[in-house]
C-alpha cells in the first residue's frame, strides 16, 4: 500500500536528468556564510555559489541550487537526490571513498572561538569545559578526536548560529568552526573571538559529486576551477567576500549583504518579502497537508470499523506505524531513504506532503475510528434491522453522528498540522521556520527574528481557530 502511495505521488513528476542533461542539481548548506547564505534580498550568494556558477558558465552547464542544510544535502547525495554537494566540505578519505571529490578549491582549517571576556587561550584550557560544534563537520571530527586528550565534552547543533549562541549564552565555553566561517560570523556581530592565529587541522574544501558523474561533471568542475584560478576570477570571488583577509576589510564586505536598520521594525521591513514567501510556503504545506491527511485519515478510520478482520488489521497497523514514528524521522526516511529504494527522486514538497499525510493521517484515523466507535451500538442495530446494508447505515446514521463528535478533534488536528509543517524545515523546504533560520544565519539576530516568526505562527493559528469555530457553529 505504501509503495502504491509513493508511486501515485511521484507519478508524472519531471525527471530532471531526462529533461536537460546540462543542468545539475547541487545541494548546499543554508547557513554557511561566507560560502553560502541568503543576502538581504533573499538571493543565495557566497564563495561557493559564485565559484560554481562561474565554473558552470565557463564549462557550459547549468546549476540548480538546493539550499537544504549540510546534513540533508549529504544525505540527498547519498540517496542520489542531487548530483553534487558544494558546502564548504572538507576533503576526507571517507568522502573520497564514497563520492567523487573535486580538486581542492579553498584551504581552510579550524578556529576555536570563545566569549570575548573568556580567559581560555588554547586547547589546553578546555579541561572540564563544554565545546559546541556543528554536526557532521570537520570541526566536529576534530573535537571528537581531541576531547579525550584535552578533557572536554561536546554538544552538537545543526546550525552555526545555534553553535555560536550556545557559547555567547555561556552554556558552552568554546566552539570549533571552520576558520573563514568563524571570521565571517564575528564580522557580522557575533560576540566571540578567535583564539588561534593559524587554523588547527588545516584542510581543503572540495566539491562532492555522485560517483556516476566522475566522467562528466567532475571533469568539468576540475577544468573550470583551473581556468578560474589562471585568469584571476577565483581571487576576485574570494576577495568579494573576505576582502584582503583582515577582519576590518571582511567586516566592510559583509556589511554590504546586511540590513541597514537593525531595529525590530527595520528588520521586519527588510525581510518582509522573504518572511511572506516563507509564510506562503507554510500555508501551502498546511492546506495541502490537511486535505490529504483528512482524506486518508477518514478512509483509514473507516477501514478500522469495517466488520472485517483484515481491514481492521490494516487500519490498526497504519495507525500504529505512522503515529508511532517521530515526524522528523518519517520526513527524512521518505526524502532521503525511500528514493534509494524506488530509484526515483522525490521533490522536497512532495516528501513533505507525504509525511504530513501519513503522520497527521494516522492521528486523524485514530480519532475517526474512535468517534465512530463512540456512537451508541444500538444505532447500528436499529439501522441494520430496518434492512439497511452496512454501508448505507454507516453513511446515513453512524457517520453523521460520529462526525459531530469528531469536530473538535479535527480542529485540533488542523492546528497541529500547521505547527508540524515547521518540522519539514529539515527537508530544506523554505517554509516559515527555515526562512527564519536562513535570515538568522545571515544577520545573527536570533531573538528578533524568532520573535517575528513566532508572532506570525500565532496570528495564523488564531485565524485558523476563528475559522474553525465559525464552521463548528454553522454545523451544530
Amino acid at each position, binding site marked *: 500500500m505504501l509503495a502504491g502511495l509513493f508511486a501515485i505521488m511521484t507519478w508524472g513528476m519531471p525527471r530532471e536528468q531526462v529533461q536537460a542533461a546540462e543542468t545539475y542539481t547541487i545541494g548546499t548548506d543554508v547557513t554557511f556564510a561566507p560560502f553560502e547564505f541568503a543576502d538581504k534580498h533573499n538571493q543565495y550568494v557566497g564563495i561557493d555559489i559564485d565559484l560554481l556558477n562561474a565554473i558552470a558558465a565557463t564549462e557550459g552547464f547549468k546549476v540548480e541550487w538546493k539550499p537544504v542544510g549540510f546534513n540533508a544535502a549529504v544525505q540527498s547525495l547519498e540517496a542520489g537526490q542531487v548530483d553534487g554537494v558544494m558546502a564548504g566540505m572538507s576533503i576526507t578519505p571517507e568522502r573520497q571513498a564514497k563520492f567523487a571529490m573535486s580538486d581542492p578549491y579553498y584551504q581552510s582549517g579550524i578556529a576555536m572561538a570563545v566569549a570575548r571576556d573568556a580567559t581560555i587561550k588554547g586547547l589546553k584550557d578546555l579541561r572540564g569545559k563544554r565545546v559546541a560544534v556543528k554536526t557532521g563537520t570537520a570541526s566536529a571530527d576534530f573535537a571528537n578526536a581531541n576531547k579525550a586528550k584535552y578533557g572536554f565534552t561536546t554538544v552538537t547543533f545543526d546550525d552555526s548560529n545555534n553553535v555560536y549562541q550556545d557559547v555567547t549564552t555561556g552554556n558552552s565555553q568554546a566552539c570549533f568552526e571552520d576558520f573563514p566561517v568563524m571570521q565571517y560570523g564575528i564580522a557580522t556581530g557575533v560576540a566571540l573571538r578567535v583564539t588561534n592565529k593559524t587554523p588547527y587541522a588545516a584542510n581543503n574544501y572540495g566539491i562532492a559529486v555522485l560517483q556516476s558523474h566522475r566522467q562528466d561533471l567532475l571533469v568539468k568542475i576540475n577544468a573550470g576551477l583551473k581556468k578560474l584560478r589562471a585568469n584571476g576570477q577565483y581571487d576576485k570571488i574570494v576577495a568579494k567576500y573576505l576582502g584582503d583577509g583582515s577582519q576590518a576589510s571582511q567586516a566592510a564586505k559583509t556589511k554590504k549583504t546586511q540590513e541597514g536598520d537593525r531595529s525590530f521594525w527595520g528588520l521586519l521591513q527588510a525581510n518582509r518579502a522573504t518572511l511572506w514567501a516563507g509564510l506562503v510556503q507554510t500555508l501551502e504545506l498546511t492546506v495541502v497537508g490537511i486535505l490529504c491527511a483528512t482524506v486518508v485519515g477518514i478512509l483509514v478510520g473507516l477501514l478500522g470499523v469495517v466488520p472485517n478482520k483484515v481491514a481492521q488489521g490494516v487500519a490498526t497497523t497504519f495507525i500504529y506505524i505512522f503515529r508511532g514514528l517521530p515526524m522528523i524521522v518519517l520526513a527524512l526516511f521518505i526524502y532521503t531513504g525511500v528514493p534509494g529504494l524506488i530509484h526515483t527522486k522525490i521533490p522536497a514538497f512532495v516528501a513533505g506532503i507525504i509525511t504530513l499525510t501519513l503522520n497527521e493521517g494516522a492521528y486523524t484515523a485514530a480519532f475517526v475510528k474512535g468517534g465512530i466507535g463512540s456512537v*451508541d451500538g*444500538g*444505532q447500528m*442495530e*436499529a*439501522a*441494520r*434491522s*430496518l*434492512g*439497511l*446494508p452496512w454501508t*448505507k447505515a454507516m453513511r*446515513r*446514521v453512524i457517520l*453523521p*453522528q460520529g462526525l*459531530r463528535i469528531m469536530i473538535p478533534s479535527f480542529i485540533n488536528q488542523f492546528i497541529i498540522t500547521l505547527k508540524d509543517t515547521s518540522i519539514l524545515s529539515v527537508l530544506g523546504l523554505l517554509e516559515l521556520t527555515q526562512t527564519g533560520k536562513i535570515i538568522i544565519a545571515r544577520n545573527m539576530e536570533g531573538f528578533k527574528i524568532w520573535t517575528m516568526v513566532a508572532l506570525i505562527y500565532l496570528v495564523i493559528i488564531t485565524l485558523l481557530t476563528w475559522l474553525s469555530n465559525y464552521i463548528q457553529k454553522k454545523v451544530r
Partner: protein
Amino acid sequence: MTQPRIEMKNVRKHYGHNEVVQGVDLKVEDNEVVVLIGPSGAGKSTVLRMMNGLETTTAGEILIDGTDIAKPHVNIDKVREKIGMVFQHFNLFPNLSVLGNVTLAPVELGLMDKAQADQEARHLLDVVGLADKVDARPASLSGGQKQRVAIARALAMHPDIMLFDEPTSALDPEMVGDVLAVMRKLAADGMTMVIVTHEMGFAKEVADRVVFFGDGQILEQGTPTQLFEHPQHERLQSFLEKVLEA
C-alpha cells in the same frame, strides 16, 4: 397448513464456554402473537435477536419464511426488510427528524420515492398518535413518544413480522399504556408478532401463545390461560408468584 413465519430448530448459542441458548425449537405461525417470558438471563432476548440475525447462531436452523438465516452468505438485509424490530431503548436516529427516522429505510432501499414515503410516514405517525410531531427532533420527545415513533419506523417497511424486545421496560409507568395500545391495535390487525415483555397483563390479553424460558431453554409453552392459570413447571410457578406479587 401453511409454512410457519418463523421456525427455529435446535438453535444453540455459545459465548465462549457459556451456552446461553441450549437447543431451542420454536415455531411462529402467520398472524400469531407469541410472548416470550422468563427471568432475566434466561435467553429470551437473545432468541428474539437471533430471529433477525442481530445475534449469530452457533448451531441449528432459523427458517424465516423457509430461508435459513443461520447459514453463512444469506442476504440478511433482504430478510430484515420483512422483519420489523422495536428495541427497549428505542434507538431513534438523533441526527434525523421524526419524519426522517420513519422515511429513511424505505427511501434508501428504493421501495418508495420521497413524496410517497412522506405521505406513508405521516399516515403511520397519525396511527400511533403523533401526527403533530412529524418535524420534531427525537431528543424533544418523551420515552413513550419515542417508542411509538420507533414502531412507526419499523412499520414503514411493511414488515410481515414484528419483533419487540422489552418495548416498555425503559418507560415511565404512565407512558406504558400508549405504547401497549398501539401494539394491541397491531395484533388486532393480524400482524405476526414476537414480544419479549414483563407486562403479564398485556401478555394474557394479547398473546395467542406464551413461551416460558429458563436457563436458555423453553421450559413450558401454551395459551395464556394454560400458562397463567395452570402452570405445570415448578420454575414457572415460582416465577409467576414473584412477578404477580410485585
